């Protein structure tokens, strides 16, 4: 019933609008088309100017509204470079935006047909074309230069001392793997994946896997001021590791390994103070449509001091130990975890 009422209301509104349109057409004929056209033309010129002024006010209001909702200061060095380059680009494009829009609407108003003037025949000028080809070209060259410098910086090879952390996407969560004490991530093979006890398909023949730690809650721990190299992969479809607070992202593609590296400069706790938000958390957002749960594919990053990190790390168990509780009694990964699988791996190798 309500649907019917709404439908008929909509139809009614259309009929009214149409009647207004039709009536204005008849009125124009009655009152002399020329005169009415001139009036309408003037009204439209004013309406455009009004729209422009309203628009500028709207931009101001929009800016005020968003000012406090935007991302906090970038949490790594490349992110700071990002923000300054972003500001330069905003400045360049902003100037062009306001100038060209103002000129457009000003011309509309100034050169409305008033019946008093005739238009000025002005068909071409090579000088003008040359000017406005050269100036944008120079502006673009500058932006490209800044861009490419930052681009090579952010995509550069990670420093040798960077901690490797693997992040693997699957529908619909992130799996994190840390190398254990040996600082080396062991080999993995998608054919060995088993959701029960080998979520990443670690190859137990590779002794480097024995002490690797896997976090299935999508939480990455980082030490403030220490470079981290993310080794990005995917188990099924394309995902994307989006790190808005660090101003970077990289796709996770099945069959291909991609990387990102960064040095976090602000701990999660300091960020809570900076943003005045006690619930603040660095989030990892999946930025490539990956299926129905895409919007909930959330990971987090905890940036902490070395001491806190060590404390956390000491509590972690190797994945081998947690996934095979009978084979290896629970033991902290940091000290003795590797022994059992190493022995087993050795056995398998010798049997070959």
């Amino acid at each position: 019933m309500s649907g019917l009422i709404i439908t008929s209301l909509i139809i009614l509104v259309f009929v009214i609008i149409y009647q207004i349109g039709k009536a204005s057409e008849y009125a124009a004929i009655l009152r002399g088309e020329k005169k009415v056209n001139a009036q309408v033309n003037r009204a439209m010129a004013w309406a455009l100017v009004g729209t422009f002024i309203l628009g500028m006010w709207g931009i101001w209001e929009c800016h005020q509204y968003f000012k406090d909702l935007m991302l906090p200061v970038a949490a790594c060095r490349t992110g700071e470079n990002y923000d300054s380059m972003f500001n330069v680009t905003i400045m360049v494009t902003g100037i062009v935006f306001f100038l060209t829009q103002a000129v457009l609407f000003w011309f509309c108003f100034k050169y409305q047909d008033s019946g008093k003037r005739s238009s000025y025949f002005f068909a071409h000028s090579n000088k003008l074309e040359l000017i406005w080809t050269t100036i944008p070209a120079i502006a673009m060259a500058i932006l490209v230069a800044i861009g490419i410098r930052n681009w090579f910086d952010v995509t550069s090879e990670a420093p040798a001392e960077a901690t490797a952390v693997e992040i693997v996407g699957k529908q619909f969560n992130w799996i994190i793997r840390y190398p254990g004490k040996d600082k080396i991530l062991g080999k993995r093979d998608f054919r060995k994946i088993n959701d029960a006890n080998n979520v990443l398909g670690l190859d137990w023949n590779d002794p480097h896997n024995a002490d690797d730690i896997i976090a299935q809650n999508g939480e990455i721990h980082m030490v403030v001021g220490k470079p981290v190299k993310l080794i990005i992969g995917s188990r099924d479809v394309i995902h994307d590791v989006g790190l808005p607070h660090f101003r970077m992202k990289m796709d996770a593609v099945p069959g291909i390994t991609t990387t990102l590296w960064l040095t976090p400069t602000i701990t999660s706790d300091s960020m809570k103070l900076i943003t005045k938000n006690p619930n603040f958390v660095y989030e990892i957002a999946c930025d490539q449509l990956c299926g129905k749960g895409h919007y909930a594919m959330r990971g987090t990053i905890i940036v902490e001091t070395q001491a806190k990190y060590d404390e956390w790390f000491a509590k972690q168990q190797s994945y081998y130990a947690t996934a095979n509780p009978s084979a290896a009694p629970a033991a902290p990964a940091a000290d003795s975890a590797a022994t059992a699988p190493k022995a087993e791996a050795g056995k398998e190798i010798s049997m070959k």
Partner: protein
Amino acid sequence: MNIEGIITEGAHTAHAHDSAGGHHGHEHHEQHFIWKYIFSQDHKIIGKQFLITGIIWAIIGALFSVFFRLQLGFPDSSFPIMEKFLGEWAKGGKLSPEFYYALVTMHGTILVFFVLTAGLSGTFANLLIPLQIGARDMASPFMNMLSYWFFFAASVIMLISLFVETGPASGGWTTYPPLSALKEASLGSGIGMDLWLMGMSLFVISSLLGGLNYISTILNMRTKGMTMTRLPLTVWALLFTAVLGVLSFPVLFSGVVLLIFDRNMGTSFYLSEIFIGGKALPNIGGSAILYQHLFWFLGHPEVYIIMLPGMGMASEVLSTHSRKPIFGYFAMVISMVGITFLAFLVWAHHMFVTGMSPFLGSIFVLLTLLIAVPSAVKVFNWLTTIWRGNIRFNPPMLFALGFVSLFISGGLTGIFLGNSALDIHLHDTYFVIAHFHIVMGVSAFFGMFAGVYHWFPKMYGRYMNNTLGYIHFFMTFIGAYLIFWPMHYEGIAGMPRRYYDYSAWESFKNFQSINGFISIVATVVFFAQLVFVFNFFFSIFKGRKLTTLNPWGSTTLEWTTPINPGHGNWEGDIPEVHRWPYDYKDDGNGNDFIPQTTPLRPGEDAH
């Protein structure tokens, strides 16, 4: 050139090339309805067929956006009306995530391909090319008819896909594999995806048949005196549009065919090392990124396929209604050449974060930002065109001015996204949504609206209602900025696109109320478009009748045809052209324009 023959032999024999399609010398007896309006070979009718099919698709696509905007704006509410439209996909008036993604996917597919490619260049290339170059029809009217009917078949298949049980394709309009290749990955990757691929294949065929026809018509069938440098800019724009389509759609086709193989025949073009649905797939050695290269090799030129017709029509409309020649005709043509050429060299800027080589990325940055130069030249030329003009603010002119404003806004944000160092954060956020909706969504639509309002009198011999046109313009113009301006901010704040719900995200849940605002405006703007649809269909039958041949005081050839031209366009000989198309100057008899058919006066400069 057989045009000479047509001119000397007169109107009746000029229809000789139609006789292959049937027995309809329509000047002697009325054609049957089916041959005149359904399987017509008259380019004007085919143009209208494209336009009306495009309008129907646009309503469907826009309605989809209203549905998913309701979800985005009010994730906690339910809208029983959605259940009426969508059935079990919106049980209790709440959209399911699967169908949310299906709606997003189909919104993109429909608007990009079925409306802004077929509906836009299909309409205006068909309508304007023969009329503006002085030809009686296309080089091959039969192929032209096929082009529409392949598009129709593609439309039917795409429409059917909306009704299958597992829903239509839901992997985004770009349908990246492996998501789109594996049935286990998503409901929409089942039969819905197969129908999507079939529909797109037919669509490519339609587009190629049309494009080849447009190119050969423009190159071969210009009337006497219509040299290339006397072509209106619309025709130039449609020529480059067709060239882009003909060279890039086959690449999409190859990408689509390989995807069909991967889906159904066990090949591994795009698949490698995948564990899904509880088991490891046997595919090894493919590259998911290969598809993206093939897709964007079309996908980026596609953006210009959408933009160029609007640019051409805006040029024409701005010049006509400012009563002033287009400024820098040759610069306009050269900048279109530049855009067309560069359009093929920038596709990988959609792929900066796929892990591609940073060096390769930097080359694409350079080429992408280079394309800003010809675009800037066009904007400055448009501004100079209206400078010291005599502007008449009728609806086509308002939409052309709106086109320029939106093109500036959307073009400038492209400078951010084309620069990989900035794209690395903005990629796949709402900044991208805002950018491309303003520039190739709304701006291209404004070009199309300008064209429809401007050439409606030529299409139907009647005017559209001006008052409704003004309402339509201001609601759409202001609404578009209200919708997309705030999205830039959301994108800068990192808010990802294609999310069903943001409430679980500490970083993005702040934007809930602005999302609601955007959704309300989007719904209002949707209804504003219905004002246009209403105006369009009502004016076909009830609009004010045209009483003069040349209502806008225009110089180009289409306005020398009768008010309701029959098949063949001109009743007598086809006109001969003596001057360029933008001679808006005093003709000595009190008119402020000189048609292309008027010979140069003694001592007059050609241009």
